[in-house]
């Protein structure tokens, strides 16, 4: 049996072999690390399940109403609305006004309605001003519609209202890119920081420096493994979010999220690289990475959707790479933007990665001391 001669040191074949074996070693190290698996895959998925379930039915809060006696105006309006009104109102019945009012005072129901001939009496509590406002407008709408119908003339004006977003935009469609962005951010930052610090501590970094392996092979292997992990995270998230229970609807160019994930991974690897270059121990690296990633998750639109966030958070978010990762993914996955919409976000993420990498190289040390 003859074996092929080993590739010459520094040749393309040797670099490829080094890259392959380093990637394999790093991937095995990751896959066998239960804590890393938990924090990069399972933990974010738990957040997705939790938030996804909490916000699932939160699109319009229903108003609960007690009918005292017979309220024909309301009954006719419900019968005539083909179930639309029942999406807003949940109606129960009571024969005693006193007990119904008690329910309203205690906040168990939002309003009690009673019909006295031609007058609809609505009693509500102002403890919750928003609900009180909704109660008022719903019932004035019902009364106006009834008056209009009683006049037997076609209405002079009609209201047609539509949501600006795609009709299917549900919380899951900003939760998925948001939490996925956070998962990729912490995965990338921790992977780079911990690898660098632990390899410096156990002197593997020096050992590799004394092997005929270029820094390029080591760095590209780390990038390849992290990008692979990021894409796995993305598909796990999408697989869960598109189940009928959560009901994520991907828009046409959702696959543009893949290049965004790659750029985002590079940006957060560069953060990890800097953390790893500065920190001396693994504990310090973990603490420092947390200190950067966690606030960024709140300010960069991962945990709190930027559309709902206060103005100052929206302003701050422009300085954070996580914003571009999250919003970029949202645009192509949920808002239905075309592939070109992702390019500025990708460019900013790559630029961020380049700048931080340059800084890291300057503060990088092979050895402790």
């Amino acid at each position, binding site marked *: 049996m003859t074996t092929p001669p080993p590739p010459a*040191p520094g040749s393309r074949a040797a670099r490829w072999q080094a890259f392959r074996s*380093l990637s*394999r070693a*790093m991937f095995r190290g990751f896959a066998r*690390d239960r804590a890393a698996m938990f924090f990069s895959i399972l933990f974010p998925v738990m957040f997705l399940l939790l938030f996804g379930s909490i916000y699932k039915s939160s699109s319009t809060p229903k108003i609960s109403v007690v009918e005292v006696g017979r309220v024909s105006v309301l009954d006719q309006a419900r019968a005539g609305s083909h179930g639309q009104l029942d999406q807003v109102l949940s109606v129960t019945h009571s024969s005693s006004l006193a007990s119904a009012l008690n329910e309203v005072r205690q906040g168990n129901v939002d309003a009690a309605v009673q019909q006295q001939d031609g007058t609809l009496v609505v009693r509500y509590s102002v403890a919750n001003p928003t609900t009180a406002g909704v109660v008022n407008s719903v019932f004035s709408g019902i009364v106006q519609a009834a008056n209009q119908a009683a006049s037997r003339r076609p209405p002079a004006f009609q209201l047609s209202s539509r949501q600006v977003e795609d009709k299917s935009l549900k919380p899951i469609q900003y939760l998925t890119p948001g939490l996925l962005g956070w998962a990729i951010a912490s995965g990338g930052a921790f992977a780079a920081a911990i690898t660098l610090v632990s390899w410096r501590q156990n002197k593997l970094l020096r050992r590799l420096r*004394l092997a005929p392996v270029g820094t390029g092979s080591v760095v590209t292997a780390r990038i390849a493994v992290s990008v692979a992990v990021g894409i796995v995270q993305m598909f796990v998230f999408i697989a869960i979010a598109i189940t009928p229970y959560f009901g994520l609807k991907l828009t046409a160019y959702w696959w543009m999220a893949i290049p965004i994930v790659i750029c985002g991974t590079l940006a957060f690897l560069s953060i990890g690289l800097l953390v790893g270059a500065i920190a001396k121990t693994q504990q310090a690296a973990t603490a420092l990475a947390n200190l950067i990633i966690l606030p960024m998750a709140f300010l960069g639109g991962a945990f709190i959707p930027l559309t709902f966030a206060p103005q100052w958070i929206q302003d701050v978010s422009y300085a954070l790479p996580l914003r571009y990762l999250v919003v970029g993914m949202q645009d192509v996955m949920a808002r239905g933007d075309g592939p070109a919409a992702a390019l500025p976000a990708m460019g900013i993420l790559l630029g961020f990665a380049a700048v931080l990498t340059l800084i890291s190289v300057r503060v990088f040390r092979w050895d402790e001391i």
Partner: protein
Amino acid sequence: MTAAISVRDLRKSYGSLRAVDGVTFEVEPGEFFGILGPNGAGKTTTLEIIEGLREPDSGEVSVLGMSPWPRNPALLPRIGVQLQASSFFERLTAREQLRTFADLYGVPARRADEMLDVVGMADVAGTRTEKLSGGQAQRLSIACALVHRPEVLFLDEPTGALDPQARRNLWDLLRGIAGEGHTVVLTTHHMDEAETLCQQVAIMDHGKVLQTGPPAALVRELAHPVKISVESGLLGPEEARTLADGAVVADDGVSLTFTTTEPAPVLAGLANRDALKGLQVTGATLEDVFLSLTGREYRA
């Protein structure tokens, strides 16, 4: 024959500390060379300069006729470096670890598996390195350094944290390696290790080489008195003193001890009187050489 390693007037300072202060020595091909000295003597810094991990302030280093600094890709495949027992990829098994290093040097996986046998670790090939004992991890680390058949092997304190049994096992392994024609450079603060393993030693202290030579020759040159002791009570004190002129004789009730620079007549006399029960002869060691060179006790 040109030297495998040649070091001339090497100097390296850290601030006001002269870690290496004018070190000169040569290592012949195939030689087992020890750099010996207490902690902080400058052994490791010297070794790191030779390996190419640090740049010397001044002086010349040549390894296999090449300069190790700056990082020399032509030299790297020809040297093997064992740093510490824990310098491994996380969560890989012993076999995977060795195969990864084999890949980095472009060596087939078969050779990696052979090395597991050479260091006697075939039975723990599937064990993750975190779970190996100190001695096993050290053996694996040496296997990783040898997998590409380097011409020169560097070992930095290989038995540092090992128990006596594991140290002895590792010595056997290292003797076997030396027999295969590798040039080996080892640093140690264990005098006995240098004495058993090395053909040549350089004794270092405070960044300087105090003396170089074969351990046995260094000890002999001392002309240090030898201690001969037998069981107490075999000879009376008067009779004992007649055995040798100039020997110091002492009896502590357990042993009768002669301290002399001329052991031959004492031993002959004891043999004639059939008084060799419990015989022990203790010569000088490298520790005594260190003591005579520095004027202070050797403390690792």
